[in-house]
């Protein structure tokens, strides 16, 4: 991005503008574009989630606003903006008002390093992965602040649960990331992607068993960090009413949900980057623009598949209890990731350039599991089929 800013300052329409101001303008422009982009992503994700969830539950879901209800999120957003922004009388007003923006900031900042294509990244930081782990921690401050400032016991419980949960799950998530970094030798997102190939067997997911285990652990921990089912304890609606967001209304409530749905996309994008080969596609055309668009589409499709998986998990699993959440983290995920990391180290020493046969074996295993999964789906489809009968008299 700096090159772009520099070139604009030297030859583009920003010629003559002071360097700092020019930088500021370019940064503001990209921030504006990204902000709108993530609003779109969060909105569409919310619609998609409601539709997927509805179909899993034999319902239809929102289908009135726009074709198939695709702009339902816009209607909901407008409604929420119009609503009164209520601050409870006994609440800590400044904190209460600031909390959603803090959460929003933590999640928005991650988009700076998400690589949508070969050159399509706002800033390819050399500490990219570390940066994401760091800034997402801001979300927990926002939620904890919301829980505290609401002056509501349910909200407080939700905030504390969130803090405990996110801090605990940073450890397995971080170590799973380290496993990947071990094989790439770099924290930069683009380098991680370039270390993989476009073919599925070149992905880190199938590179060796340790990376495969790390990918699962990362996904579980990321779900927990994003407060998704089965780890949605901070807002557990059947226990804590709405958890940390109980007292929020209108736009501020909307911002929290924006964070939730946006985070879902961040999880998908991170997983895609680290384990699914990111934007890698075979070189199809010479045209850089078309190639770039295809890369973007590939990245988007992969990350949205993971978003879909997260929705699907939400439609399947119940919520864990708070002590089980901690048990899962400290007794299962943390020891397994450490053992996994050591295993990965040994593997790396033995086969510094990877083992082609292992890649294909892992890929074959993945295909076999998928086929078995589809056979189970067919089995369930055949076994029980609830029938719709509209007219009982007919």
């Amino acid at each position, binding site marked *: 991005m700096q090159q772009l800013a520099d070139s604009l300052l030297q030859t583009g329409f920003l010629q003559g503008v002071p360097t700092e101001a020019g930088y500021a303008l370019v940064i503001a422009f990209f921030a504006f574009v990204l902000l709108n982009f993530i609003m779109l992503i969060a909105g569409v994700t919310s619609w998609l989630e409601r539709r*997927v969830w*509805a*179909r*899993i*539950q*034999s*319902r*239809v879901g929102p*289908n009135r606003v726009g074709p198939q209800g695709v702009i339902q999120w816009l209607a909901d957003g407008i409604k929420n903006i119009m609503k009164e922004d209520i601050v409870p009388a006994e609440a800590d007003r400044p904190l209460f008002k600031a909390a959603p923006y803090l959460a929003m900031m933590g999640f928005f900042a991650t988009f700076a390093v998400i690589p949508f294509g070969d050159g399509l990244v706002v800033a390819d930081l050399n500490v990219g992965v570390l940066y994401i782990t760091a800034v997402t921690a801001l979300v927990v401050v926002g939620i904890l602040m919301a829980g505290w400032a609401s002056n509501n016991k349910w909200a407080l419980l939700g905030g504390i649960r969130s803090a405990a949960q996110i801090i605990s799950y940073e450890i397995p998530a971080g170590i799973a990331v380290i496993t990947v970094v071990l094989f790439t030798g770099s924290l930069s997102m683009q380098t991680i992607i370039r270390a993989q190939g476009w073919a599925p067997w070149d992905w880190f997911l199938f590179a060796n068993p340790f990376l495969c285990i790390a990918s699962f652990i990362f996904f579980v921990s990321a779900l927990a960090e994003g407060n998704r089912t089965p780890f949605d304890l901070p807002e557990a609606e059947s226990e804590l009413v709405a958890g940390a967001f109980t007292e929020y209304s209108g736009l501020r409530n909307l911002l929290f949900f924006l964070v939730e749905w946006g985070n879902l996309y961040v999880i998908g994008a991170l997983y895609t980057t680290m384990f699914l080969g990111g934007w890698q596609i075979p070189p199809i055309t010479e045209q850089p623009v078309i190639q770039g668009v295809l890369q973007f589409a590939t990245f988007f499709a992969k990350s949205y598949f993971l978003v879909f998986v997260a929705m*699907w*998990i939400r*439609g*399947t*699993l119940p919520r864990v209890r708070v002590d089980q959440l901690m048990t899962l983290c400290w007794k*299962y995920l943390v020891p397994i990731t450490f053992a996994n990391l050591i295993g990965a180290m040994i593997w790396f020493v033995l086969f510094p350039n990877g083992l082609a046969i292992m890649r294909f074996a892992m890929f074959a295993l993945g295909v076999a599991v998928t086929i078995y*999964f589809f056979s*189970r*789906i*067919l*089995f*369930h*489809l055949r076994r029980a*089929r*609830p029938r*719709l009968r*509209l*007219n*009982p*008299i007919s």
Partner: protein
Amino acid sequence: MGYFNNIRETIRTIFEGMAITASHLVREPYTVQYPDRIDLPIQDTLPFRYRGLLDVDLEICTGCLACERACPIDCIVIEAEKNKQTKEMILRRFDIDLAKCMYCGLCSEPCPTGSIHHTPEFEGADYSLESMVRRFVKAPIPAYKPTKGPETDPEIAPLLTRGLRYLDEFASPGDSK
């Protein structure tokens, strides 16, 4: 060993559950969009015995007050008096307070002609309690007097047929077919 069993069990059951939910993704949804996304009006899909809003066919009401007596919440109010000269019942008032009515169907059971009956109509929302009171008698009218033999009046006969059919299928207990 319990440690690894737990992990195995967790993965297996989640795998199975995910397969079931995925199979639901390709099944057709069960819900129906109310009110405009099915081919026929909702009322037509309801069974014959459906207990919707009460209706009264005053032409075949005998003024016997059986429904008023049967109603457990007194939502039916009937005023009928006997005309001294002609010896016939005059209905002065027949009100049903639909805000009170609990759609139990006890009133339509004792009705001798099937005059008071449930319709498949159920959309009864209104803005005031006052407008929920249905006043069937606009001006005092004579009550129906059952005739010996089949009904001949062309205006009343179809109503009576409907009423008796209603009684037959809906409100006559002990009738087994």
